[in-house]
């Protein structure tokens, strides 16, 4: 309850500051519309915004799912198989040398103007934080746990695989959880960039379109909805991670 109140006060403060700026500077509505204009536009064009928000949300969720699956897979590969570490690790680092923004036009060229290219963008942008954090967790298993498990499985076949499954993966889940939180917060960037570069739907497309027609109030309304989606996503992921890992001290850390 207290937390909700704090959120509300912060939000109201921001809106008030925004309004104050508009009133004090007398800025034109097509440069910076007042909050009231944005809310009116949001209500007026709700159908249009909602439809595009659905598109963007689906892109984000698909990207999040794919990025998480691929990220976990590559972290497990690199973390478990030594040859994979030598070959895959440099590739992972190099892959981050290509800015996703620069790749966007190529992805649109290859995958088309519809959803696939946006999902690919979101996947690309979150794949690395997921891989890096999960891998970090896999590498930092408490040495005592590994020693213990090693004596318990001495002489057993597949001992390394079992230690991975029963010890190292569960031990790495809190780190994966932080990776997923970052992923939830950054996945929308991928989808929006994809929509900017070439698309026929989604909030990014709607904003670009509105911007070109000087409908700045519509742009702000779309932006507001996008922020709401991102926040909802972040807090959902955060809650799920905390619920899944009640034993992890990390769970107490995130935003309350």
């Amino acid at each position, binding site marked *: 309850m207290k937390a909700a109140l704090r959120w509300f006060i912060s939000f109201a403060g921001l809106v008030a500051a925004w309004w104050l700026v508009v009133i004090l500077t007398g800025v034109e509505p097509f440069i910076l519309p007042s909050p009231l204009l944005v809310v009116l536009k949001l209500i007026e064009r709700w159908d249009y915004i909602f439809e595009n928000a659905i598109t963007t949300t689906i892109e984000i969720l698909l990207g999040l799912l794919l990025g998480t699956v691929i990220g976990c897979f590559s972290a497990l590969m690199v973390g478990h198989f030594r040859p994979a570490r030598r070959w895959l690790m440099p590739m992972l680092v190099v892959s981050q040398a290509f800015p996703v923004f620069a790749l966007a036009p190529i992805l649109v060229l290859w995958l088309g103007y519809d959803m696939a290219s946006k999902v690919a963008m979101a996947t690309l942008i979150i794949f690395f934080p997921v891989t890096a954090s999960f891998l970090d967790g896999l590498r930092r298993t*408490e040495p*005592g*746990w590994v*020693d*213990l*498990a*090693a*004596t*318990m*499985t*001495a*002489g*057993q076949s597949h001992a390394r695989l*079992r*230690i991975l499954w*029963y*010890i190292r993966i*569960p*031990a790495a*889940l809190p780190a994966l959880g932080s990776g997923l939180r970052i992923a939830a917060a950054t996945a929308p960037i991928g989808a929006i960039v994809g929509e900017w570069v070439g698309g026929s739907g989604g909030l990014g497309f709607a904003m670009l379109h509105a911007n070109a027609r000087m409908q700045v109030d519509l742009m702000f309304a779309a932006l507001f909805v996008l922020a709401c989606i991102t926040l909802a996503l972040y807090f959902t992921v955060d809650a799920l991670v905390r619920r899944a*890992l*009640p*034993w*992890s001290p990390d769970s107490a850390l995130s935003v309350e």
Partner: protein
Amino acid sequence: MPGSQAGQSPFKESEHGVPVGLRLPGVSLSHDGRPLFTGLDVRIEAGVTTCILGASGVGKSSLLRILAGLIAADNGVEAVGDHGAPLTGQCAYMDQRDSLLPWLDVLANVSLGNRLRRRPLNQERARKLLAEVGLAGRERDLPQTLSGGMRQRTALARTLMEDKPIVLMDEPFASVDSITRHRLQALSARLLTGRTVVLVTHDPLEALRLGHRIHVMSGHPATLDTALSPPGLPPRDPTDDALRQSYGELLARLAQESTNGAGQ
């Protein structure tokens, strides 16, 4: 393989069978280019507790880790049983970190070994052992809700659950307060009776309380002296006169070793 037929008689006290002694013939190990021991012969008697006493950094933990198969000796020597057979899978290992997995409850932690080996979990036996160490009723609690002493008792139950003929302990009670340590020593002496136990410690009193045989490990590279066998059976009472006498002798040995070491 002893202990692997879990489930056949969950209520029997132990399934580890005949006690096994062990040998480590001529083992060498160096750390950062400095030899910890060279050609050290280790013989551990079957069915009794052997304490290896020494100062920090003398290499006693490394020696225990070689026995446990956790690190390899420089010359590839591995621990073998009395009859020269390798010891793979016959040792349970416990150190001062309780190493309880925070995502498993107490009961699941105790049966971790069977889980890792894909054996029947044998939770009846796990519950019985938890009751023995005084943790009945805490089976479903997560480790972080337990005190340090309780965590170490859980670790002891997990070690016993392994039901291996050889138990290797590296300062197992060093991280708990002295009263808890005193109780844990009595408990483990009782529960480990009849097994071959190697216990590494820097505390002469702990060695005297728990060891049938006590070796002092010292020097660079380190050597083991001939075993001291204090009178009486563990767990010995620390206020006992005979134990005080042995304590004096042990301190003399430790002191002598350290002056020898300083002279080198």
